[in-house]
């Protein structure tokens, strides 16, 4: 049985909620449960009662440019799922909450800080035999108005930020597989090659594959002590130093961003969503193997 969240030593334990907490808030009008998966059939096959579906490709990404939705797009999304500025949004999903933390990260670009992640995601909910339904809830739409434009600065790094970061030998975490880090493969095992022309990693990056932060049997996050060993002791990453995480398109690294920022309390960590599909294609940038 996983250690209770409050006893795991996290820097910001309030951002992670248990399956019990979600069960207790299924009828809470101030809570909106959001499922976000890689597999787009999963939500329709059964989800937590009352949960809405947010798809990372159609809901969070700009449909033309490689970028995220605009302020207007976010307002539409929040209105559609029936959320207000006071709504606590709780994300969960497949693959150890990989896409849930990605959605959580995008929501932070819009400053919706009333956001949490359900520890263990779909896997834990299902393993505990909790109820699921195929009924799609009909939450009354809201008229969500964002008070400001999307603000990438605190959470998102662009390629020029990374370039400046490596010049001052800043901390970088490469969360891809060891083979991608070493440059022996250009894509995740069992995933298609999305077109990076060069293999390897950004100079100085430490390799910590994202899923090491998870207990594989139930998808829950490891304790702070275990995470500190992984990131701070084994890889000598300092929580007080500016840190940038990256992967292939910024999804796996949003999971690590979440773990570093909220569970270990890294004070300044950003996600480089351009990641290897940008860096591995740029002309003249430094690469290590």
């Amino acid at each position, binding site marked *: 049985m996983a250690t209770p969240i409050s006893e795991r030593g996290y820097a910001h334990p309030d951002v992670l909620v248990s399956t019990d907490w979600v069960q207790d808030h299924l009828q809470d009008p101030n809570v909106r449960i959001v499922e976000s998966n*890689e*597999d787009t*059939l999963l939500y*329709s*096959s059964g989800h937590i009662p009352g949960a809405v579906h947010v798809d990372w490709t159609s809901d969070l990404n700009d449909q033309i440019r490689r970028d995220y939705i605009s302020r207007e797009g976010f307002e539409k999304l929040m209105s559609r799922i029936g959320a207000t500025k006071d709504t606590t949004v709780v994300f969960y999903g497949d693959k150890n909450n990989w896409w849930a933390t990605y959605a959580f990260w995008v929501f932070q670009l819009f400053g919706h800080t009333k956001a949490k992640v359900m520890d263990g995601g779909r896997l834990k909910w299902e393993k505990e035999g909790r109820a699921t339904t195929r009924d799609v809830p009909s939450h009354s739409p809201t008229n969500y108005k964002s008070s400001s434009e999307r603000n990438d600065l605190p959470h998102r790094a662009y390629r020029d930020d990374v370039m400046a970061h490596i010049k001052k030998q800043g901390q970088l975490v490469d969360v891809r597989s060891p083979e991608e880090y070493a440059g022996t493969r250009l894509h*995740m095992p069992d995933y298609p090659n999305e077109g990076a022309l060069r293999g390897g990693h950004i100079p100085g990056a430490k390799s910590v594959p994202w899923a090491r932060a998870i207990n594989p049997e139930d998808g829950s996050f490891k304790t702070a002590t275990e995470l500190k060993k992984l990131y701070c002791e084994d890889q000598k990453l300092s929580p007080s130093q500016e840190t940038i995480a990256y992967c292939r398109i910024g999804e796996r690294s949003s999971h690590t961003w979440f773990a570093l920022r909220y569970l270990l309390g890294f004070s300044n960590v950003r996600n480089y969503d351009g990641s290897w599909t940008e860096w591995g294609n740029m002309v003249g940038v430094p690469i290590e193997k």
Partner: protein
Amino acid sequence: MALPKKLEDVIETLELFDPSDRTGMLLSYSDQFREVPREIATRPFAKSHQIPQCESDAYAWAMKRPDGGLDLHFAVENPSGVSARALAVILQKTLSGLPPSEIAQIDPAIVERIFRQNISMGKGLGLMSMVQAVQALAKAAAAQDTHA
């Protein structure tokens, strides 16, 4: 090469549907999934029948009928393997009974036509790998026919 008529019919029907109905139809196929009968295979399933690259931990078998046609059977161990179960049912319903040489010609690209917007990065390769596994089983059965 043209697809077998039953398979082409299923794909054409799916192509007529809007995304929401297509999702519903795929789920309906998934719900019809029946695991490989015990007389053919029991757990732990032989690794030789495991489909590589399939994160749904799927297995495939092909059994020859007296008339030479093949019967396809599958197991999908991952409870979240909704797409794998849907594809297994489609392949089983549309290809079972056909001669191995015909099944061996099925193009893995059918996966994109079947799943369209429901295909994701990680899932696509695994599902195509399911079709390739069926192809391989059919080719092996066809080779046996040749040598018989």
